[in-house]
């Protein structure tokens, strides 16, 4: 009874808001502003940047300008404001008939240009475009980008939290945990027992526990940091292909270097199948070495990026309709997805560690025929 009443009230509020917003949208159509492009905004967010945008419009809002570090005939360090406050230029793309915007650097960055957050060397003060992309030479870019800063903050946070846990054990010895230790210990034990011990040989699993714990907590904490919409978080670090590539690469390296005779035997000369099949299986198994971590890389990247895209798309409903009343619809939906993303943040960290453990377990498994 109570629930159905509540439902009616909520439905009424939403319907009222929709009517309200409709009347407002009509009025706003008189102004001919630059069209709000959801796809562009979302893609801009989920990619890396040389600034940390805080609030205000995309151009001219308040941002933290991050340091640009280039290696191009020596080390060059300057603020990215030299790009963002530099001369804006645009080129008409021949194929898509759309303007491509880029910033020419000023001051220390006068020889470079920033186009789609990539730094290019200017050739005689110009960028040369081919099929919508600049093909100027790129300097080695070691800039502290948004993702790099997020990585630093995530690492710092991980260290702070875990140090408080370790301090508890150092102070109290082998007693029942309290505080943060009480919260994190079951997770540490879960990684040790359910991830490492369950998949890797009982005599060998201990060697891999620190790696699995590190990868689990790194992914988990950074996933959650990405869900916070303002400064310490908000970057799409674990949804960046470079980061997931590196993590998957680590698992590949650990797996390959842990592989014993039995493992390589199964790859190059599959036991228990006819000889022609052995030749047939060899390339498949060799490709399998790569595809397993490749799947890890794609899974984490796609899941986290998708979460960011959905939340942003739901919030964008308000801006597409140019009315705050749409928040009545988009905010609860975004909240729901955000809560779901909290679960996904844990789940993806768990899956990454679990599958890494599974691959390592397969590599160190002894023959038991």
């Amino acid at each position: 009874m109570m629930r159905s009443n509540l439902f009616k009230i909520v439905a009424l509020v939403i319907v009222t808001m929709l009517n309200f917003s409709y009347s407002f949208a009509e009025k706003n159509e008189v102004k001919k502003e630059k069209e709000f492009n959801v796809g562009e905004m979302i893609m801009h967010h989920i990619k890396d940047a040389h600034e940390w945008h805080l609030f205000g419009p995309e151009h001219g809002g308040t941002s933290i300008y991050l340091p640009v570090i280039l290696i191009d005939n020596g080390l060059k360090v300057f603020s990215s404001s030299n790009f963002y406050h530099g001369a804006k230029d645009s080129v008409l793309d021949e194929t898509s008939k759309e303007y491509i915007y880029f910033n020419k650097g000023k001051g220390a960055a006068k020889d470079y240009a920033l186009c789609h957050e990539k730094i290019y060397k200017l050739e005689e003060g110009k960028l040369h475009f081919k099929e919508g992309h600049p093909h100027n030479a790129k300097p080695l870019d070691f800039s502290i980008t948004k993702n790099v800063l997020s990585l630093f903050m995530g690492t710092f946070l991980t260290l702070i939290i875990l140090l408080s846990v370790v301090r508890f054990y150092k102070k109290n010895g082998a007693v029942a945990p309290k505080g943060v230790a009480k919260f994190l210990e079951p997770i540490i034990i879960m990684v040790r027992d359910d991830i490492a011990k369950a998949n890797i040989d009982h005599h060998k699993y201990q060697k891999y526990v620190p790696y699995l714990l590190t990868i689990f907590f790194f992914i988990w904490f950074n996933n959650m940091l990405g869900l916070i919409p303002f400064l310490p978080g908000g970057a799409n670090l674990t949804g960046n292909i470079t980061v997931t590539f590196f993590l998957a690469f680590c698992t590949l390296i650990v797996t390959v270097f842990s592989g014993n005779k039995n493992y390589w035997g199964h790859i190059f000369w599959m036991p228990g199948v006819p000889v022609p099949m052995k030749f047939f299986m060899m390339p498949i198994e060799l490709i399998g070495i790569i595809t397993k971590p490749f799947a890890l890389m794609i899974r984490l990247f796609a899941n986290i990026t998708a979460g960011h895209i959905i939340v942003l798309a739901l919030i964008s409903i308000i801006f597409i309709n140019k009315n705050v009343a749409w928040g009545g619809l988009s905010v609860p939906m975004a909240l729901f997805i955000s809560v779901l993303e909290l679960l996904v943040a844990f789940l993806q960290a768990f899956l990454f560690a679990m599958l890494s453990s599974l691959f390592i377990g397969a590599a160190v498994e002894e023959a038991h025929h």
Partner: protein
Amino acid sequence: MDLILPDFGLLFWTALVFCCLLFVLTKFIWKPILSAVNAREQKITEALELADKTRAEMQALQAENDKILKEARAERDNILKEAKEAGNTMIEAAKSKSKLEADKIVEAARLSINSEKAAAMEELKNHIATLSLEIAEKVVRGELASDEKQKALADKFAGDINMN
């Protein structure tokens, strides 16, 4: 497209930070935490083992106690039985002895009664004899009180003699 292309700078920083993090966490975080957790697990396992051992010991002790108690009970029963038997024999002995005594007393009483009876009989006889004599005397005296009677008597006697 650059969404799915790795970026060299970020790769460098990720590799650097992750490797440092792996080293620092392994050395300063995971090792102490895992050793503390392992130590605690060891402690708990030992405590549980000790509890099991103590329980087993307790059970053994209990069994021993039970055994001792059982033995004690058996012994008590034995003693009680023996005591009962001894009591019974004593009672039996006392009974037979008292019966004997009683028989003796009864016998003695009977003997004494008989002798008393005999004495009383003797005395009665004597008394009766004396009484009879006295009566006879009195009768004779009465018979011989007058001459006629003396004569009648004499006649009678004489008649009796004659008839013989």
